[in-house]
């Protein structure tokens, strides 16, 4: 298969463009997505290519943007909304949780609600308590939602295309660290491809400890793994679930059965976060294989401020420390 190199941000735009070209029912909505070319230029050019009826600049009305997506989706369209920063998801919980997630089931299967919300995890930039946090576990908790956390250009494109075609509401997280082109290049096939939901990717094989990591945690875990290999001779397996709902439990369980040790790495708050669910799942289904306590490497349970990210977000060092604590004692 022919390959090409692409940046993360371009992979997302390519997925949007391909799906819009393929299916006239795909509609983009959000603040500044059209004329203004997107707050971070992700949708650049699409307004010119597909026109203002398919790339819709909205008022600052998050709740109604997502509510309108529910209506559009029920009416047979496939809206892709942009919610500029992840904490703004707090504004759309009613249409998303009480409506989008439930209408298929509660209507007795009469309608479906295919929609995607792209939203930005803006951490490490001093964006503050109402722009930086990341609430993925809220959405894992809700039946019938998809939670997608791509960490590479390949995953981003393939999963976004799947999300647009999926018949359930999908929350698609992008991390601001992935937007700059230079450090975020990756290979993807020239031809069209899709990545199914619920298939974790083993980003590195190992035998001593399993690290389940998402988004920026993946890269940090991979470099921690390298360091641990080199300096301590510890063999780390790094698993990127890529979708948190559905979650590929089997790949995680298989790995833990092999290594006997689990660290979950994420940049969401620790308590009742993504790591809690993964730890609980493993302890329910594979306790007998665990040779050491599960460790959650996550953001400290303190509001994110203008300046405290460097102290509270987890980093490579925190991963190294957690792995060592599990393996060396």
């Amino acid at each position, binding site marked *: 298969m022919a390959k090409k190199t692409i940046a993360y941000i371009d992979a997302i735009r390519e997925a949007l463009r391909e799906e819009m070209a393929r299916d006239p029912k795909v*509609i983009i909505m959000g603040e500044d997505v059209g004329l203004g070319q997107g707050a971070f230029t992700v949708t650049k050019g699409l307004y010119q290519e597909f026109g203002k*009826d398919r790339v*819709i600049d*909205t*008022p600052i*009305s998050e*709740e*109604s*943007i*997502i*509510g*309108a*997506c*529910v*209506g*559009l*989706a*029920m*009416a*047979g*369209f496939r*809206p892709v909304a942009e919610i500029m920063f992840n904490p703004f998801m707090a504004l759309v919980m*009613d*249409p998303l949780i*009480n*409506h989008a997630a439930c*209408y*298929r*089931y*509660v*209507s*007795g*299967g*009469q*309608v479906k609600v295919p929609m995607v919300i792209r939203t930005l995890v803006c951490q490490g930039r001093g964006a503050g308590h109402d722009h930086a946090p990341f609430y993925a576990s809220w959405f894992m908790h809700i*039946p*019938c939602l998809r939670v997608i956390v791509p960490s590479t250009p390949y995953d981003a494109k393939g999963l976004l295309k799947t999300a647009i075609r999926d018949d359930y509401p999908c929350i698609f997280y992008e991390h601001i660290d992935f937007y700059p082109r230079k450090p975020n290049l990756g290979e993807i096939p020239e031809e069209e491809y899709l990545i199914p939901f619920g298939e974790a990717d083993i980003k590195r094989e190992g035998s001593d400890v399993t690290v389940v990591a998402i988004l920026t945690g993946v890269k940090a875990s991979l470099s921690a793994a390298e360091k641990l290999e080199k300096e301590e001779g510890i063999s780390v397996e790094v698993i990127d679930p890529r979708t948190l709902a559905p979650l590929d439990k089997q790949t995680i369980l298989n790995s833990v059965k092999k290594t006997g040790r689990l660290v979950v790495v994420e940049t969401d708050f620790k308590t009742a976060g993504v790591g809690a669910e993964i730890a609980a799942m493993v302890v329910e289904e594979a306790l007998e294989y665990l040779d050491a306590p599960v460790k959650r490497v996550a953001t400290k349970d303190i509001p994110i401020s203008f300046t405290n990210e460097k102290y509270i977000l987890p980093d490579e060092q925190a991963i190294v420390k957690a792995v060592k604590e599990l393996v060396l004692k």
Partner: protein
Amino acid sequence: MLEFKLLAMKKLNNYHPKSKVRVKNKNLIGGFNMEKEILIKIYQNIVLLRKLDEKLIELFTAGKLPGWIHPYVGQEAVVAGISPHVRKEDFFCATHRGRAFHVVKGTPLRSFVAELLGKKTGVNKGRAGEMHITNWEVYSTSSGIVGATFPMAVGFGLACKLEGGDRIVFCTFGDGASNRGTFHESLNMASVWKLPIVFICENNLYAQFTPSRLTTAVSDIAQRASAYNMPSKIVDGMDPIAVYEAVGEAVERARKREGPTLVECKTYRYHGHFYGDKWETYRSPEEVEAWKKRDPTVTFKERLLKEGVLTESLVKEIEGRIDSQIEDALKFAFESPEPSLEDIYEDL
């Protein structure tokens, strides 16, 4: 002690200066400028809605209806007045009190009543109950979250616009709902994007146990349309012809893609917010009685009889037919099975 004041009907007029929807000074008593079938359809719907609700209240009181019930009794002229304008393919958003509209829109009475009883044969397999019905055969839906249908209506309106054609959206809501932020966000969007939506406020003066005057800065919800450069109109919601005409003009604007309209219908619910609440705590019996004097099942019937549209025998026939339809639906519903354990895993 709490004081009650009989709320006077406000002068009915237009608010939007550029409104294309004008009050017609037609003398209705002197003859209807409408087809006879339409008048009879409206009358039938009034009778159907009244009888259905009375039956449901009876069941509820006897402990045979699960959940709560929000009676529509008193407000029937609104939905009945809208009904002749609605096409099967039009979208419709109902409220927690809008249950019966799904029937008017075309939901079979059997699967409707079965749904209220939580049966597997219900239009939503018994998953919705009175407050959450969706019948996508006729594109009607609802929400138990007050005000949540405004943005859904915007989505439907966008779909109509993108599809082309003359499909439109009806969105009914209460006076209380007009205080939700979604009202504002969505009416703004509807206006900016010129969406084919008819917003119909059923202003019954109360939101649950609270009189609107305590919570709502305007007594005419229609006044709010000017914040969106949207035409609006106020009509007597106890008069189905007034509703029919105002909504008709709004529908015409929508089908012609001239944009959304807000129609406010002044109406009243005779029962409590849900059946059995202590409504004496928040409104006076005199007020209730005053409104009941204008009951459409009486006043509209009398008008139609006087004008020769109805005859006593036709009235009997209509009532009889509706009674037996309801009986049939109830029988069907009561005999239907409940959802089983396996059923709950369907449609996931």
